[in-house]
């Protein structure tokens, strides 16, 4: 059963440094396709570091690798991903007349990818 969680897109040091190498280069691709997840949430879903998970929002879905974060860094139910092409696929295009698509706090369904 997929679980509903809240996805936050944002910047990280590695995203920033790998961006300078190039957005099509390996490190940036890896950084932007890894989601950080509360360690207890991962255990409950039967996930360990580097396992694949499917994130599905109202706008689209992506498959990314997951990485555990302690509860004091990332509360249960919260996910963090570095901005990039994959996080963009989960963003809806409506901006509510502001010009800004919702890029943080996106509701997503999370489920392990087993195949």
């Amino acid at each position: 059963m997929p679980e509903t969680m809240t996805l936050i897109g944002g910047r990280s040091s590695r995203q920033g440094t790998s961006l300078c190498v190039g957005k099509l280069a390996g490190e940036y691709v890896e950084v932007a396709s890894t989601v950080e997840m509360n360690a207890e949430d991962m255990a409950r879903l039967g996930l360990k570091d580097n396992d694949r998970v499917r994130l599905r929002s109202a706008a689209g879905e992506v498959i990314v690798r997951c990485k555990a974060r302690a509860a004091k860094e990332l509360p249960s139910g919260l996910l963090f991903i570095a901005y990039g092409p994959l996080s963009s696929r989960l963003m809806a295009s409506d901006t509510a007349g502001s010009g800004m698509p919702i890029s943080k706090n996106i509701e997503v369904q999370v489920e392990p990818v087993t195949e």
Partner: protein
Amino acid sequence: MSDNTHIVRDATCTFCGCVCDDMHLTVDVAANKITKAENACVLGRAWFKEHGIENRPFALVAGREASTEEAIEEAAQILARARFPVIYGLSDTTCEAQRQAVAIADMIGGNLDTTTSVCHGPSGIAFQGVGESTATLGEIRNRADLLVFWGGNPAESHPRLFTRYAVTAKGMYVPNGRKDRFVALVDVRRTPSAAVADLFLQVKPQRDFEVLWALRALVKGRRVDPAIEKLTGVSLATLEDLAGRMKRCRYGVLFFGMGLTMTRGRHFNSGALLALATDLNEYTHFVAKPVRGHGNVTGADNVVSWQTGFPFGVNLSRGYPRFNPGEFTTADLLGRGEVDAALIVAADPGANFPQRAIDHLRSIPVIVLDPKPTHTSQHARVAITTATYGISVAGTVYRMDDVSVTLRTALPSPYPSDEEVLTRIKARVRELLGGNRLPAARAA
């Protein structure tokens, strides 16, 4: 490293909006690389190290290698033919290049927008509604004894904001630096920035507005229901403590990031924070500063404002500028499939925009100016390699506090600057159109 090195002192890093202008660069001339960037943060070191002169095609037109001249001709033809073109990006290039982009938009009666619209655009809307109590980073460095960082993670996105301008920096009225300042961080997760804070407020997602409004009430001496904790995750006692400190400080600052602008509420969140700063000026001196991401996104706001009267999301199709976020902002124009050509300067909407917008971008002729290949350039009709500003291109940029900074170069580049390419595109478009395109109604 070869023996043929030279030092460029007081160069400027344009990776982020801090625009630190105290870089001492060691240049390996033979290797065409910067080998050392003294004073740079981790992001600045990567910026200088990875922007050496690469052996790339001068341009690609429809995927085949072309000269810059051929690419400029094709770009001008696309823009002259288009009925509703958009010019977008501009936050990682010089003010001189931004000026040329505005002139092209004016000439072709196009739409002009910058990455501000998907950054602090909502704050720009809030500024117009609420106003901005502002300061330079130098003033903050020398005076601020209370700092609140809200919805941002400068430790990873703007590392030297803490050390050069705010938290640990020693200043005229805060001679002991960190010891003389109280620092609070507000975020939905405990980021590495929390390590510098005396107080960390972990807010539930999408509850920033409620916390800001509660602080406004407390600052004004109004009663707040203790149930605020259940709603926001922050106890009333914590909010009362922070409100009291904010009122008692000598000089307070609210730095705010995209934790406010990119989430539900958008400009209302930024507006609530700006209103809180205004309220606090009844008791002490308080300022609010958006923490800006790209090296010259603040310059883009300034240039587009002084040229058109508006900071972003400007439409010139009637022969005069109109500003309307949601209508003339690029994510919306692309998402609705309205524009029929795009000129993208130093930005990558092909990676950063919602999928529907990217799908439309891939269906129209796109011109990209960028030093490196991007997701957008991969699908562009015309991709022109340009030199990197602040490394191979001199010019002017604006720091996040609207202070202009002059760039100096370290590496000569074989590639033209964005300004040069845009100036030549403008000249060719003028030839093709015979001057500014007249608005449709008047042309008829």
